[in-house]
């Protein structure tokens, strides 16, 4: 195999695929990237057996062939190469020589035949959707994914398709983020899958602000094809719990706040959040919000800001991290906080089909 490639192009492509490679793995081949050269260019693939990403890039191929090279090491070498043109040559023993101007590298690889084949993709439900739409929806929900591995069904984004709606949900038992987007799907495509965290993260990296992507879903696998890239992931098996159970009913009070100012205020006050309870207090009254934190051994913080709220005084405590997470990932200027009372879950909403349920903390006093 022999080819020439632009440094920037190669670097970019390696960056997109290398995150899949796990650093600690029992199978050495899994830390390698599969490079296949054909007449049209290169195809790079990485896998951790759960998530597989392949990406096509343009290259001047002189001799076709395939090999695997250590992904992270290759990426760091390419990043440092001095010239924009890179010459690659791989011999039969899968040793690659990399020449770039005065630099010369020799990297030992593994035969491409050892690279695990991507599992057969069975009968799938296929459709195309907007990249931006999916990217936004993932961004607005993925931070709420549970990291508790004992609850593996929650270790991903639950994705429901049906009734003209695409619903994405993530929860960790203390908060829940949901996006419910109107979408026309061809009939017969109703389905519910749980996309694992890793695939969600990789997918977010690949998604663009424009264009479409092709999605195919089977009961155990999902495939996403976009911009010369292809991501295939195993799905989390099991049933996602009925998340509608924890979404509170109609709220009694609505507070309208400016998102960015609110985020910054919470960030500041949270510096002195009580370490034991990890909560800060929000007091709404008279178009004013007072955010306060009190750590007995460290000190206190308080900040007030203008909001729109004319109901009775409500004091409620939340985990500041849980309040900030959605605020960071929304881009609306205004958000609404719907409250029932001091001990019922609060709901953050925006003008779009999104909601975020957050449990209040119980604080004495």
């Amino acid at each position: 195999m022999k080819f020439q490639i632009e440094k920037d192009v190669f670097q970019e492509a390696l960056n997109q695929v290398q995150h899949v490679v796990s650093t600690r793995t029992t199978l050495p081949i899994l830390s390698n990237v599969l490079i296949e050269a054909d007449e049209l260019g290169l195809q790079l693939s990485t896998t951790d057996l759960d998530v597989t990403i392949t990406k096509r890039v343009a290259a001047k191929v002189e001799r076709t062939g395939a090999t695997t090279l250590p992904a992270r090491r290759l990426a760091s070498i390419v990043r440092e190469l001095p010239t924009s043109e890179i010459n690659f040559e791989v011999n039969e023993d899968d040793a690659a020589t990399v020449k770039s101007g005065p630099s010369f590298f020799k990297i030992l690889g593994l035969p491409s035949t050892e690279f695990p084949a991507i599992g057969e993709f069975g009968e799938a439900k296929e459709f195309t959707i907007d990249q931006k739409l999916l990217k936004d929806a993932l961004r607005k929900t993925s931070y709420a994914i549970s990291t508790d591995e004992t609850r593996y069904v929650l270790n991903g984004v639950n994705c429901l398709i049906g009734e003209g709606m695409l619903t994405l949900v993530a929860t960790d038992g203390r908060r829940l983020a949901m996006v419910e987007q109107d979408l026309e799907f061809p009939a017969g495509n109703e389905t519910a899958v749980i996309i694992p965290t890793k695939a969600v993260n990789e997918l977010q990296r690949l998604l663009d602000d424009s264009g479409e992507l092709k999605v195919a879903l089977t009961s155990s696998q999902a495939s996403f094809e976009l911009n010369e890239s292809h991501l295939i992931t195993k799905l989390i098996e099991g049933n996602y719990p009925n998340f509608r159970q924890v979404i509170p009913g109609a709220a009694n009070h609505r507070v309208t706040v400016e998102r960015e100012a609110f985020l910054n205020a919470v960030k500041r006050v949270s510096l002195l959040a009580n370490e034991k309870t990890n909560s800060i207090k929000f007091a709404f009254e008279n178009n004013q919000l007072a955010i306060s934190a009190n750590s007995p051994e460290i000190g206190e913080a308080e900040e007030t800001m203008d909001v729109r709220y004319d109901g009775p005084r409500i004091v409620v405590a939340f985990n500041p991290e849980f309040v900030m997470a959605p605020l960071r990932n929304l881009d609306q200027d205004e958000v609404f906080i719907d409250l029932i009372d001091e001990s019922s879950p609060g709901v953050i909403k925006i003008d779009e089909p999104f909601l975020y349920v957050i449990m209040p903390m119980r604080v004495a006093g």
Partner: protein
Amino acid sequence: MQSHETFHEDQPADRQDLEKTWNHIARDLRVELGVGTFDLWFGDFSIVSYEGELVTLGAPGSMYAIWVEENFKICLLSILPNYFPKCKRIAFEVGTAEDTTALPKSLEKPEEPVVVKKKVLSEKVSEKKLLERGRKAGLVEIFRFDNFVPGENSELAWAAAQAVAAEPGKTYQPLFFHSSCGLGKTHLLHGIGWESLRLRPKSKIIFVTAEHFANDYIDAIQKNSLVPFRKKYREADLLLIDDVQFLGRKEGLQREFFHTFNQLADQQKQIVLASDCPPSEINELEDRLVSRFQWGLSTEIHRPGLMTRAAILRSKRDEWGMNVSDEVINAIVERVRGNVRVLEGALIRVAMVATMNEEPLEVSAVPEILSDICGDSEESNVGIEEIKKAVAEHYDLEVAVLNGKRRTARVAEARQVAMYLIRTMTDFSLVEIASSFGKDHGTVIYAVKKVKSKCETSSSLKSTVELIRRRLLRGDSNRSADRSRTVSQSGKGPMEKGNRESGQSLKKDGTKRSAS
């Protein structure tokens, strides 16, 4: 001081005892958490078993189990040992048919909680919600597709409106309605809004008049908050703008609108515009906007014909529940030729007389009731020749001169005024007007535009035009004409330009010289 019995390992726990114990625990939890929180989370919980350190609670759903464990585990672990002394761990068991039988509890309506939740969640398309959204978008309820009466005058506009509502951004981009006032532009705009809201309840629809847009813009500039302004308009899925002619002569506004337009068009979002004249006739509208407005479909709504007028009034009569016969309506539409508002006014008046007299109205009574309205709406009776005659008379010319090729300042002005008046007072198309002068329609467009803009700068021309118009409306074109004349202004533009150019060339020379 607690008076409850506790369980011991050697005492086998039977179901009834467990139930009783749960009631005790529930009481403690209510005290600890408050009744609202307890009902919200623990309403359907129970105790399933107790074995050594492990107490198993029955949860109505796995999501409940997860949230309760995450949020109330500590609290439970502080209460349960009071009843189960050895309890150190809690497990949850979920009812088998969790998602259907075990209904979630909500504070407001425990008896039908699912409905409540659905509403908050998915915001299904209830009629009320739609109305609310429509109003928020600036739509007015009375203008809907189902009460629009299409006729031969509005066939194209009607078809285009339906196509756009069905598939926004796909068919005509932009869709541009123009007509004189009261013929249904605004009705169609609102109709498109409501219809697409019905079809796609979550699409973002904005209806504004160009004036409102301008005010928003000015506001944004004053408050230095252009970002939210841009966001608001540039993220719309369907932008409906009425009275676009208002954009005329407002450069900054046009520029802003241009960018809004482009962005929406790029994203294939639908834009629908309405104006009282075609894009090319809007005063001092930047060419790039004119060309963009003409890019999609520009369609005119004409005055309704006899049949359509009758159909409109019949539909109005049914809508308002008036007791007016078809014959009477026919009599009304034969007399009243004005726009739909005038027609409605006539109908209301006739209906009112009928109710006052408390007896069905005779057809013969209609002319009298409507005598003055008919007078007002006579405008459309003025013909090309009458206008030409009146203008010629005013400028002291022969009609033949107007139709001829002479282009002295006075003749040219008279000709333009005549074209303008014909265009504004009659329904003749540009081509028809042009051919009556032996010119092409571009000339007419130019003339109309010119007179309109001149009227704004020269009050004497304005009064001349108004005078002739009034005279035509009164029907007496024989009185002695007002002799006021207007002096055509000679522009200073070319001179200035010339100077600037020569200045520039001088400078260039200078640099050249120093360079050499």
